[in-house]
């Protein structure tokens, strides 16, 4: 898993946005986008892209797919000792891209729609049939696109992304619209693909469910990659420790006797049992509590989850943000002013 199939170095892309002025109604300025993204994708690995709405996940995926040209920086791949810079066309040959929510429509049949994409990738008819079977659409090959449900459309888009046996698979919100069984089968499929050496990047809001299969995680906010690495590495970068969840029967113990820092302890008392959450544990605590006669039923050390990591990285908190998309928060990101085209 050491071979780097794609390395983004200072990759930058900023969208042009309209900023009309009195004398220049056509004026456009450089707006939000991706700023100097550095990312490595290793062979057979799964990278999860996580960030709030508008973080730039889709833009980054489009850059990796060769749809948006890099305005600065480079995309490279290395095979053994040799490192080569990839053009947009080379990227498109390597990459299978599954955009978010393709709304297939019209009188075309499922098979014809996939054949159209297959012809653009020089894939064979047998490959098309095989993929339709793989994504569970073999019974709908002659159905019209307009007759497909959202989940079926997602499956068709996935089949399109898998055409041409790509080395890199980019998935933008792939679980949208999939029923739970299909979602589980999808995760299984991803595993099989990585075993075959396919590298996968997933951008998903439902990444919490995918944590078990993700090898690496990249946290994004305002067009920047804030932290990247394995779950443990990211937690370490963000100074997040494992939390300890202790449960017991009866009345909750007075934790001040065991822990000095009161703020790092959260106690919840239920009718017949209690639960304590410790931000920081210490060696020997379990022994001390048992010696004190406290009846403990479970002791779990829980690593920080993705939401906690994201909040730590962006400076946001679930309570503060709510559903607001353009939270300003305290994130000390670079501010940018519009620059004229």
């Amino acid at each position, binding site marked *: 898993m050491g071979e780097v199939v794609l390395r983004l170095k200072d990759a930058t892309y900023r969208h042009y946005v309209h900023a009309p002025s009195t004398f220049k109604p056509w004026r456009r300025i450089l707006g939000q986008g991706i700023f100097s993204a550095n990312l490595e994708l290793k062979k057979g690995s799964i990278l999860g892209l996580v960030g709030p709405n508008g973080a730039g996940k889709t833009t980054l995926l489009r850059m990796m797919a060769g*749809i948006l040209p890099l305005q600065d920086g480079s995309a490279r791949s290395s095979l053994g000792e040799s490192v080569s810079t990839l053009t947009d066309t080379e990227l*498109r040959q390597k990459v299978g891209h599954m955009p978010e929510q393709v*709304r*297939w429509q019209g009188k075309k049949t499922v098979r014809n729609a996939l054949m159209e*994409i297959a012809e653009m990738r020089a894939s064979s008819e047998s490959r098309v049939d095989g993929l339709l079977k793989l994504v569970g659409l073999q019974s709908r090959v002659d159905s019209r696109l307009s007759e497909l449900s959202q989940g079926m459309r997602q499956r068709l888009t996935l089949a399109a992304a898998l055409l041409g046996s790509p080395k890199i698979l980019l998935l933008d919100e792939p679980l949208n619209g999939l029923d739970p069984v299909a979602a589980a089968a999808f995760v299984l499929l991803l595993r099989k693909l990585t075993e075959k050496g396919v590298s996968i990047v997933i951008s998903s809001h439902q990444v919490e469910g995918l944590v078990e299969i993700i090898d690496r995680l990249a946290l994004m906010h305002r067009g920047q990659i804030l932290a990247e690495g394995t779950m443990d590495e990211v937690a370490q970068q963000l100074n997040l420790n494992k939390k300890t969840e202790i449960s017991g029967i009866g009345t909750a113990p007075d934790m001040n006797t065991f822990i000095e820092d009161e703020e790092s302890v959260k106690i919840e008392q239920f009718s017949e049992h209690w639960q304590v959450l410790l931000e920081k544990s210490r060696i020997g605590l379990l022994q001390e509590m048992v010696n004190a006669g406290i009846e403990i039923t479970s002791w779990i050390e829980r690593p920080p989850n993705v939401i906690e990591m994201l909040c730590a990285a962006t400076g946001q908190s679930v309570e503060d943000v709510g559903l607001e998309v353009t939270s300003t928060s305290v994130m000390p990101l670079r501010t940018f002013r519009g620059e004229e085209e």
Partner: protein
Amino acid sequence: MSDFSRIMAFTRRFRNERLFSTRMYIMLPILVLFLPGMAWGFSDPNIVLPGGHQPANAMEVLFYASLGVVFGATMCAVLLSYDSVSRERASGVLELRLSQPMPRSHQAIAMIFGSWQAILIPTWFLMLISILLVRYRMGDWPSSADAFVYFISTAFILLWYVLFTVLASSYTREQGTAISFGVGLWFLFTFLWALVTTMVAYASGVSIGQENDATWVMLEGGLDLLSPNGVYHHLLETRLPQIDRGIAVWQSWGMALIWTVLPTWLFIRRMERILP
């Protein structure tokens, strides 16, 4: 699969999607009325046109019947291709296509050919029927050169309207805007161009609408080179020696080339840069 065969395969899919679409079934009766219908009417041996003129041969009838192409077929070209890019863009299919290794310029060429062939095939078929109708009613065949110019110039004008429309479709994110642009352009060149000609004539001090005034005829002929419909008629007039509007044959074909190359280049360039 070679690049050429890939473009052709993509063209075929694009063409068939439009050729067998519901809107084609709606437009087909209109095309039948406009093309063979006009040929039938103008080839009536007893017809007397305004000014007491009577068509003398088959090519002259086809020239008059070309009004059906200008009014009907071009509108159908607009209606068939207005969503070539915008619909795919709105649905997300364009993003999927743009992420394929097939060069965008090849995709653009296939889109043009596909949309063009979708309107060209029924139009040419109906034009063939028109020629048979003229032969039946007048007893005269157009010469092979006449027929060649008739078919090729019709192919040109349909291509121009397809190009304008797909170009508009690539710039708009919603189909309503794309169709408005296409229909607007069709109105400009089909109905409003006479107004433009009149205004230029007025500004130049040329007496307006005097068919016997050489200055007016020359001015109108010159301005017609700036309109696709005008160029179409100039091309047809190359086979009608009795009509002289001061435009040389090479000028007509030269402008036809410019009207073809310029929007094609613009569309390919646009597709190279388009964002999903």
